[in-house]
């Protein structure tokens, strides 16, 4: 940390909800210095704590989930049962303290709990309240609840993945949740900027389905303007050929592409087959696209006996775009990600050492960090309620007796 402190130092964020879409926003804010409090209820903890592997040593446990911890590093965790006496009031007190509230429940649920924006802004008019859900807060299907992995199908991504004419394919996890988190986060910080100027708070209604459209914006333009419907087509590109994944030794793969004749000539030479570039089937991009199957087979035969690392070194050395198809394991040894310190290992009381993802942008003066492992359930009740909110010991004990924590 530099003398200037972190960029988001002093920003107070609370999260209601769980899983990925909301917590990912909080994680990124926390990595750049915000104080982020993840709120759960003891009888309804974040679903990622108990619903998905991996668990430490394969043993399920409320504080053993690597899935939960991956999305919640650098945060504080508290528990509030809003149905117990004083619980709702405590949640209100926390929202009065906060600059930002992020919630990702089904549309309307937070209002029913009594923590809706209209209610909270009465006592905290500067609050920036971001709601993110599948369909948004309004519209005929607003009430739809659902998982991001399935919403990624509705939003077009699964249909755009797979062989032409074959089955759509899964993308790992709730792809669209992270899309929505990234589109939503700048809005929070822009709303804060307005608040600095005007004092006004905001309610930001983010529909994950709509955010997905931004990641396919050119396709929608092409459809609306020209009626064109782009469908899944394996690794085919409308311009580049070759453009594919090629098998290597030891079940590794590389991705490689040529965007012009010069690149293809260099690939052919690097492969020891300069005659490919003279073959009349492959002499121009159109020919290479038309005969891509034959070309891919030739390239695949060349790559099959070699390691991915050797191949990409050869191709990059020749000025041809190529990269190993990194598996999750490879991501931890990738020299470039290592250089950027993408993985930050932190020690967790129950999980022990875990590698946390640091976002894809580095700030030169206020670089941010993974400041702590993910919190245990209810880990920070004392700290947050007593020190941050200033509850007296009496008040705290009373709430504890009421079962609020």
């Amino acid at each position: 940390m530099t003398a200037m402190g972190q960029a988001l130092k002093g920003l107070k964020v609370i999260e209601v909800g769980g899983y990925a879409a909301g917590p990912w926003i909080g994680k990124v804010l926390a990595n750049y210095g915000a104080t982020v409090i993840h709120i759960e209820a003891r009888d309804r903890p974040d679903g990622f704590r108990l619903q998905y592997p991996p668990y430490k040593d394969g043993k399920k446990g409320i504080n053993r989930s690597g899935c939960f911890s991956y999305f919640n590093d650098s945060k504080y965790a508290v528990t509030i049962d809003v149905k117990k006496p004083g619980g709702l009031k405590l949640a209100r007190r926390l929202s009065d303290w906060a600059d930002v509230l992020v919630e990702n429940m089904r549309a309307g649920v937070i209002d029913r709990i009594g923590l809706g924006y209209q209610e909270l802004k009465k006592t905290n008019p500067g609050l920036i309240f971001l709601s993110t859900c599948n369909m948004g807060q309004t519209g005929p299907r607003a009430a739809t609840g659902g998982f991001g992995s399935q919403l990624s199908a509705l939003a077009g991504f699964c249909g755009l993945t797979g062989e032409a004419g074959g089955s759509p394919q899964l993308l790992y996890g709730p792809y669209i949740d992270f899309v929505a988190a990234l589109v939503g986060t700048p809005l929070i910080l822009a709303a804060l900027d307005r608040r600095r100027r005007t004092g006004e708070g905001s309610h930001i209604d983010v529909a994950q389905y709509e955010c997905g459209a931004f990641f396919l914006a050119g396709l929608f333009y092409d459809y609306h303007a020209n009626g064109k419907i782009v469908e899944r087509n394996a690794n085919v590109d409308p311009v580049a050929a070759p453009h594919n994944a090629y098998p290597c030794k030891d079940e590794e793969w590389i991705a490689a592409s040529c965007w012009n004749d010069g690149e293809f000539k260099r690939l052919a030479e690097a492969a020891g087959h300069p005659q490919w570039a003279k073959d009349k089937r492959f002499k121009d991009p159109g020919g290479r696209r038309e005969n891509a199957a034959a070309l891919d087979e030739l390239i695949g035969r060349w790559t099959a006996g070699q390691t991915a690392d050797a191949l990409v070194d050869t191709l990059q050395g020749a000025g041809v775009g190529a990269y190993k198809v990194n598996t999750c394991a490879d991501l931890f040894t990738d020299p470039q990600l290592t250089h950027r310190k993408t993985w930050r290992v932190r020690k967790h009381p129950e999980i022990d050492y875990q590698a946390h993802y640091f976002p894809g942008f580095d700030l030169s003066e206020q670089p941010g960090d993974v400041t702590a492992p993910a919190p245990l359930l209810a880990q920070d009740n004392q700290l947050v309620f007593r020190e941050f909110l200033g509850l007296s010991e009496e008040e705290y004990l009373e709430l504890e007796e009421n079962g609020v924590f």
Partner: protein
Amino acid sequence: MLLEPYRVLDCTGQLGWLAGRILADIGADVIKIEPPGASLDAPDWRANNANKRLLSLELDSDAGRAAFLKLAAFADFLLETAPPGSARARLFDPDKLREANPKLIHVSITPFGRTGPRAQWQASDIELMAAGGAMSLAGEPDGMPLRVTAPQSNPWAASQAAVGAMVALTGRAATGRGQHVDVSAQAAIVASIAHAPASWDLIGVNPLRAGAFMTGRSVHGAVYRVFWPCQDGYLNFIIYGGIAGRRTNQALAAWMDEAGADLGVLVDFDWAKFDSTQATQDEVDAMEAPIGEFFMSITKAEFLQGAFEREMLGYPVNNVADIAHDPQLEARGFWADLAAPGGGTERHCGGPAVVDGQRLSIERPVPGPGQHSREVLAEFGFGAAEIDALIDDNVVADQ
């Protein structure tokens, strides 16, 4: 608008276009810089450069570079995608630019980041999706790794760049100083694969391509179908366990019954006893057979509506046309019809959120070549004679 009209110089190529579009949609004054004569017709260019102004400026000339430095001295943000080590990257030197303008937030968006052993490696979308781990997780288990057919590395990099730009702006509010934001598309894409890396990190299991089936849920190794053919395409539906799964499964069985479909083993099925983690493949196959037949009798639109009304989990596999005609997006005023060149309108994604009940508005249609060159240069303090000279020397193009 949320953002005061901060001025953004957007010198990006496709890797960064969406960053400027996001900043423009939340209220910044984004000035896209393109060389005179650049083609601005590609659907991707148009979609990602709406809501910006356009300055046609040749940066491959001494006079153009001098003009750029003058602009950068008075801008709040610079967004750029210059390849590390290139002449353009030397023009966009973070230290020099901030020496001239300490408030500048300079966002570099490159395939691998500005520094590091592979910073100068060449990569397009497919190499980046490979480098970020995404391709290793998409495709049939016995097939090849796949990318999403529409490039995703650009929006992943650009959206993280927009976050980085806003984090730096928040920092600037406290310190008065800008900073350099170095975005790596490869590192940005790692966010797309959720917690998959944690599986290797914690339990030594390397997740691989999942194909069209859900694996790893049954202790007997049974796989569950995810994508089901229907009358006009595919549906995404999974026989989940747990309470949410049970509710969905019961609702589907009731729907099938109402429709007079053959229920097979699902007649009087005891969903309360069903445990998806204990099912064998034979049991799963027997359950899936009648469901598969029923789905073949309905359309994607019927499934979407029926599943919504019955509060079931599951969605159809949409294509762009399905999404474009979805009444939900229409009702929320998502699409923006902007003035098109030569009259009429063209349809774009509207603002990315509804703020205080209002859809963020798109203030400007897609700009044309040179459209704002004169006004932008004048606003940055260039005199009329100076502007004319730049135009005469073909450094700047006018409308």
